[in-house]
């Protein structure tokens, strides 16, 4: 299980290192505008081929790149009902704080759970390899957090049940 996680993350890291070659590119259509081309997708010559990396049917990562911006969308594993709501709750919590994260997108791309949008400005402000480190660590942390939340719910449930039933003995 851990094996596939490392392979998955290494593959994502390598793809990001290749895809994150961003430079400033003012908008071709409108004067004095500078837009992230990956969001608009109007001019095909500015876009690179999107890459989809799947760990299994439930988990995948879509990396779309363009000349001045890159969009990374993730789908997180959700095995049962409880993991489903925990993931939704946690990712919504993160998305609402997208301002603080700068590279996070407020709404995930259709069909995915969470999305990042990195522009050339971010690459100018921050070291590229550290940014990629951050993205990969983010993915690991989400998985860890959701399984820890689920564990805490189960542990609390067990404790609550034991205390209640002990009252009858």
């Amino acid at each position: 299980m851990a094996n596939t996680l490392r392979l998955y993350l290494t593959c994502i890291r390598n793809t990001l290192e290749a895809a994150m070659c961003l430079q400033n590119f003012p908008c071709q259509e409108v004067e004095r505008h500078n837009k992230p081309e990956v969001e608009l997708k109007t001019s095909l010559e500015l876009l690179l081929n999107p890459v989809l990396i799947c760990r299994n049917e439930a988990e995948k990562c879509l990396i779309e790149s363009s000349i001045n911006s890159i969009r990374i969308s993730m789908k997180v594993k959700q095995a049962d009902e409880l993991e489903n709501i925990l993931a939704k709750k946690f990712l919504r919590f993160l998305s609402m704080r997208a301002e603080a994260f700068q590279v996070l997108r407020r709404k995930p791309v259709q069909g995915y759970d969470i999305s990042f949008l990195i522009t050339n400005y971010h690459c100018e402000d921050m070291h590229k390899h550290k940014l990629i480190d951050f993205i990969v660590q983010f993915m690991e942390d989400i998985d860890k957090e959701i399984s820890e939340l689920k564990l805490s719910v189960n542990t609390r449930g067990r404790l609550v049940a034991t205390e209640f039933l002990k009252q009858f003995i």
Partner: protein
Amino acid sequence: MILLQSPSRFLLQILQDRVQSPEKGVDLDCHSVEFGDVRYHIQISMKKPQVMALSVSLPIPPPEAIFYSGLPVGAIEAIKAAYGPIVQILDPPKDGYNLTMKLYLSKLPSDEEQRQALLVKIASVREVVLGAPLRVVLKNLASKTVAPDVDQLVALVHRPEESFFLVPQTEKVIVVYPMRFQDSIDIVLASSFLQEFVEARRTAALNNAPPCMWSPSPPLELKGAPAEALTANAGFVTFVIFPRHVEGKKLDRTVWNLLTFHAYVSYHVKCSEGFMHTRMRRRVESLIQALDRAKPDTEKMKKVVQGKSFKRLSLKEARGS
């Protein structure tokens, strides 16, 4: 605090304060609302400082568990038995309340321990009044007397417009709770908690606890129940209470635990959600710190001198200018 406590802290505090310093000199008129829509109103006037008027309002019962004369079956007898000469029930109760009692503080026993025990009992008026019909059924079980309602479905109120069900039998009492929650997240968390109850019962240490079952559909015991009672979005929990669970001192505790089971689960579901929020906030902070590490050093230096609007010059630039 994991378990819900029977005496209301609000009532107990006021009673203890009054008894300790009866010549306080101020009139008292307080309201309080507790979980499950139970309201209290306390009044003390300095004209008669030894008399306290306590009014209790109970949650609205659903149609299958209607209160006759405004109180659950057996409530008045239970109050008289628990409090004796200290309490006088006023009829009719104050407007908007199900019960109004006059407490004669001068008639409290002078022995410190007995007085404290009685004050705690008065603060547990909710358990005495709402739990009266349940207490009657369980007392019959403890004394192994055959009750008139054996094998029939008894509905009792525990929340506004919701009830739980008892099936008294000769050797045991089966208690069934339809669990309903309004929030969708609550429903999923509660379902996982309730399944833990079943799992926990299986451990060897809890062999003497009441057997516990959970099912998403109404169990067979609820065959005669009205249709609204049969919808429950977090399943049905069934406990089987045996005489050993209600003998002697355990009777009061069992009554309170069964009466507040839904409130207990709901309380812990909310605590769990609060804890998850704290964890998520902590995780967000650590992620933002990781992002800050991605920024090069000059940016970080600017952050250190927050609030000052000058640009920090490096040594080279300072020498040049």
